[in-house]
């Protein structure tokens, strides 16, 4: 039973902490820091479903986030829909698109799949940059009137923050639930040896397409919320290649294949990144550090921080899994 997993309660405690920390002193700066951490955790834990669980490296994961942002923003600000409805529809739309894409590109394996995911990212970005209703390369702005139904801009920011924290908790619970399910076992079998898994009865084509689609849903919802909160979107910030790559660094750092690792890696790397980006001397330097970090992790601790913890304290696996 998932309810008996200690990790479930850790996830809920983490979400509660995220809610409580900025609320305590109405600390807006802290809230802005934490929302970035939450988004990093959302992206990393959903990326983990593909890389860690299924063994398929997705270099274009950010496309879900950006596309979700566009769909959500369009619905919420141009059509004036309720934010939550807009975000959910953004999630569903992007998931359905991912399912269709997935059935096509998931016939590829290994490096070829990875290349195709870059192709998807570039193609979607090019499409959006030329799509008139979404403002082509200048993007879209959230009109101030869109914040009115949420009780004004100030309150809207807090509401989106709590929604993002909710999405973060959902992402982690989803990862945990899949990990402990029969579906997850099928994914692990695909990761270890896809042909053997098929011979054992796993319908790999369908499983891969489903997990690709599932891994798109919550990032797309988060994208809709985040870009609504930021007040604008354009193709270069929505589909930031670097963020896609940094997602992989976060996952490797924390420990691919584990729920806790994806959260830990996402949180730590995001904090480091924010520190480097805001430091006057190091701001141009953060990608160099990301690259070096990735090399070090892959070379010295291929299981990431969580893998390292398991090796140090084997019993911790019981609690963390």
């Amino acid at each position, binding site marked *: 039973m998932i309810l008996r997993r200690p990790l479930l309660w850790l996830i809920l405690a983490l979400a509660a902490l995220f809610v409580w920390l900025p609320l305590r002193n109405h600390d807006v700066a802290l809230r802005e820091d934490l929302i970035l951490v939450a988004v990093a955790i959302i992206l990393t834990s959903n990326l983990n479903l593909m890389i860690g669980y299924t063994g398929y490296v997705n270099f274009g994961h950010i496309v879900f986030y950006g596309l979700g942002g566009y769909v959500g923003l369009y619905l919420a600000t141009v059509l004036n829909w309720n934010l939550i409805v807009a975000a959910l529809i953004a999630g569903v739309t992007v998931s359905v698109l991912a399912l269709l894409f997935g059935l096509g590109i998931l016939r590829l394996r290994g490096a070829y799949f990875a290349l195709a995911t870059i192709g998807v990212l570039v193609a979607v970005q090019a499409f959006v940059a030329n799509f008139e209703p979404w403002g082509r390369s200048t993007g879209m702005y959230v009109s101030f009137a869109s914040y009115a139904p949420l009780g004004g801009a100030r309150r809207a920011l807090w509401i989106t923050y709590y929604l993002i924290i909710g999405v973060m908790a959902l992402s982690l619970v989803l990862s945990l639930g899949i990990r402990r399910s*029969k579906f997850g076992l*099928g994914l692990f079998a695909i*990761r270890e040896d896809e*042909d053997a898994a098929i011979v*054992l*009865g*796993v*319908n790999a084509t369908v499983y891969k397409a489903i997990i690709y689609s599932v891994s798109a849903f919550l990032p797309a919802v988060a994208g809709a919320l985040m870009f609504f909160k930021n007040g604008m979107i354009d193709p270069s910030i929505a589909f930031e290649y670097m963020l896609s790559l940094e997602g992989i660094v976060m996952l490797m750092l924390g420990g691919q294949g584990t729920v806790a690792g994806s959260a830990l890696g996402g949180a730590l790397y995001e904090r480091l990144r924010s520190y480097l980006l805001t430091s006057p001397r190091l701001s141009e330097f953060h990608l160099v550090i990301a690259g070096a970090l990735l090399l070090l992790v892959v070379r010295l601790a291929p299981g990431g921080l969580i893998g390292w913890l398991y090796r140090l304290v084997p019993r911790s696996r019981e609690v963390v899994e």
Partner: protein
Amino acid sequence: MTALLEVQGVSKRFGGLQAVGDVSFTLQEGEILGLIGPNGAGKTTLFNLVNGVYKTDTGSIIFSGKNITGRSPDQVVHLGLARTHQIVRPLNGMSVLENVIVGACYGREYQSLRAARATALEVLEQVGMASRANSPAHSLTLAFKKRLEVARALAARPKLLLLDEVLAGLNPTEIAQMIDLIRKIRDSGVSVFMIEHVMQAIMNLSDRILVLNLGHKIAEAPPAEVVKNPDVVEAYLGFPDIVDKLRGAS
């Protein structure tokens, strides 16, 4: 007895190589059917055609009254046709138990995780690997990896089990244990179709033997007849009357 597997005129060509050509045979329920032939005869290819890893160029495959020609391996397993691999393919990052649970979860009965766990423990007991349930699959010796292949396939609760050289690379003690296991599997009601190079074993185990050479069937008969069949002797030894010649010389 009724036919469990009926293969009709099956062929497979890879480029210029006719790997399997117009092969027909039937396998009766409760039978152990052996499949032998020199290297490159098309034995594993025939297995791959039967369980759907390869699509047939021509011919049809009827399993348990259903036409399974062109079905994918995962669909075939659900109908009750499981197999092992000649070159073992354990799911390395998982434990022995988890490997077998996958077999049970996605097998004929499509069991829930909980039921699959019980099945897996039972099957591991049956193949004599209960004490290794929690070992990582990659840490096993070859003999145990072969048994794990059998256990995973058995966990699918098949009606027919395809065994691809489960004895190769085992020492005599391990071979004896495996033979014993295969007999027990048959006695539990599972039909067996097995490829094997260890002649003594396959002659002992099989009710009938199918012989392939260069992709074509050259014999299908009980073991005692197969060893006397001139075509079979020629395929293995080069010329048909070698046995008599050798006898004459000694």
